[in-house]
């Protein structure tokens, strides 16, 4: 700290500010971070640890000891394994489809100077304002036995009996893609909007036709956005509950639904908790692998 009280040429704060101010600043910063950290800890870490504990107890309530039996039960049960497989397949397919369908929209949204893009932006945001249940119900109206699609096909005389559009894996995929597309579009658009136009022009002048310009320049520069969008979509699909139940009509069991049944209907908390832990760690493994792949890909 400046000791030259009389020195008129001495510039205060030229280097580091006095220590007391630094302390006050860190304290203020801590105060700002505290509520968020508190909610994260209370709402995420604590329940997770509790769930981990329950999954390892031999029974709940009134445990007498710890065991890995529940994990063994879930992981050796063909029924459970099918559901786990289906859940991750659903998440993978939905992520892929939102990326493929969302990219062009995100590109247009972020890079067009057209006035219409505000309307499109509104169209992407608007569904987020409507509850998931309402949107899913919308699909049941379209896809149901007495729904729009069947009515049209019957009216045209294409079919006599209503098509069973409502109970398959793909109707759940359709619903999930519809619900999660905005997240993908907004994530990708945030990154795509920052791509320097002259980079794309440089590729063109250097001899890249539009396809190769896309593959060699545009896509690699968009990877960060696709990655963050994929993480969001994948996680939301893996944990989805409402849409699989409503559009799957009980035919498409996913892990979140099964965990709920295990705990609430069968009141088997430890097995449900073990399944939940498997879901969570499985998701983390997939995301980590995905992150590694992207990092290596972006390096090339």
């Amino acid at each position, binding site marked *: 700290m400046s000791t030259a009280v009389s020195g008129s040429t001495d510039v205060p704060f030229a280097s580091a500010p006095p220590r007391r101010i630094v302390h006050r600043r860190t304290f203020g910063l801590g105060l700002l971070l505290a509520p968020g950290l508190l909610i994260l800890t209370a709402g995420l870490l604590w329940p997770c640890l509790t769930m981990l504990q329950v999954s390892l107890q031999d029974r709940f309530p009134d445990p007498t000891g710890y065991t890995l039996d529940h994990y063994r039960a879930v992981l050796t049960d063909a029924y459970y394994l099918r559901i786990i497989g289906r859940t991750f397949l659903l998440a993978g397919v939905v992520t892929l489809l939102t990326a493929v369908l969302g990219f062009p929209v995100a590109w247009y949204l972020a890079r067009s100077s057209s006035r219409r893009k505000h309307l499109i932006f509104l169209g992407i945001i608007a569904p987020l304002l409507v509850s998931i249940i309402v949107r899913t119900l919308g699909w049941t109206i379209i896809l149901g036995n007495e729904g729009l699609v069947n009515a049209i096909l019957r009216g045209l005389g294409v079919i006599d009996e209503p098509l069973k559009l409502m109970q398959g894996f793909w109707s759940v995929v359709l619903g999930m893609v519809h619900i999660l597309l905005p997240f993908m579009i907004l994530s990708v658009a945030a990154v795509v909007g920052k791509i320097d136009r*002259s980079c794309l022009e*440089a*590729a063109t002048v*250097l*001899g*890249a036709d539009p396809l190769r*310009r896309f593959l060699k*320049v545009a896509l690699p*520069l968009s990877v960060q956005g696709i990655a963050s969008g994929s993480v969001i979509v994948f996680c939301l699909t893996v944990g989805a509950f409402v849409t699989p139940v409503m559009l799957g009509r009980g035919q498409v069991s996913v892990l979140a639904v099964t965990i709920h049944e295990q705990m609430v209907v069968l009141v088997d908390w430890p097995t449900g908790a073990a399944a939940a832990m498997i879901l969570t760690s499985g998701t983390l493994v997939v995301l980590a692998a995905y992150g590694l792949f992207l990092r290596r890909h972006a390096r090339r």
Partner: protein
Amino acid sequence: MMISSSDAVGVDLRGVRKWYGAVPAVRDVSLAIRPGEIVSFLGPSGCGKTTTLRMIAGLEHPDAGEIRIGGGLVNDVAPWKRNIGMVFQNYALFPHMSVAENVAFGLAMRREGRAEIDAKVAAAMAQVRLTPLADRRPSQLSGGQRQRVALARAIVTRPSVLLLDEPLAALDRKLREQMQVEIRQLQREVGITTVFVTHDQEEALTLSDRVVVMEAGRVVQTGTPAEVYERPRSRFVSDFIGFTNAVAGRIEAVEGGTATVTMRSGQTIRVPAEAGLAAAQAVDLVVRPEKVELNPPAEARPGRALVSGTLRHSVYTGAVTYHHVDIGAGETLIAMASNGDGHGEAPVLGSPVTLGFRPENMLVFASAV
């Protein structure tokens, strides 16, 4: 191995026009760029110079006219098929690729073999002294290094034409001067037909064989740097290139190739008459400060045009000093004096002085109004 191009080609523009909606960006540009020549498009922003360059590259499509590269019409040739090298204002390096990968990109797009690409990339990187930086990312380079990567990437494919869009605008002054020399040397080595866009008159004069001065979408003058500087064809060109030093006047008489002009202050000078000037016409008189001598010695005065005035202030800039002289009626002429050995003491401010210059160095333009 050196990257060089023995078969340079010319670029021809004929009646090229481009509108953005209802706004004309380029109106009727015709220009023949010779093989191996380095030409600059010089003008203020919005004069159409960058749009013209982008039309040569194929990044913009002309609304009318013809663009020929090496004699072949390229209006409808896709930009990725034109074999052009281009350096963008912000360099436009690919941030996700290393320096070497950036330089190799154009060769990879031409589907050349791995070994061939490696050899050519190494040669181009050596040519711009980048070899030790091959594995760096563009974000790890300084401005001058990025500039050189962009240059290497543009020339490694042996393009038929090299286009530079304000290539030095983002560099600081020292680096800019150094890069001017490097670009010029590289262009000589490679022998490639080069077009660059700039709004910096000094850069245009330093770097080009010919300068194309543009204004409001049109070419207003084409010539060597000396021609556009010494014999600007309009007031606009004289103002844009070099120091503005102009006073208003009126032509009294034109006879035998000599015009007698009265300045607003009432002083009269006799200058060579340009074609198209007539008596009673209002004109602007323009003279470069370095052509004007302050208090010329008596033996240098015969044959000179002389104007008298009062020294108002002297601006010392190091190598030279600019003397601002009030010649009456609120008009000022500036004389430049070298601060080299043997120059006399500057006169006291407020003292009466005489300005002398050769009549042929006074340019006479019809007034705009």
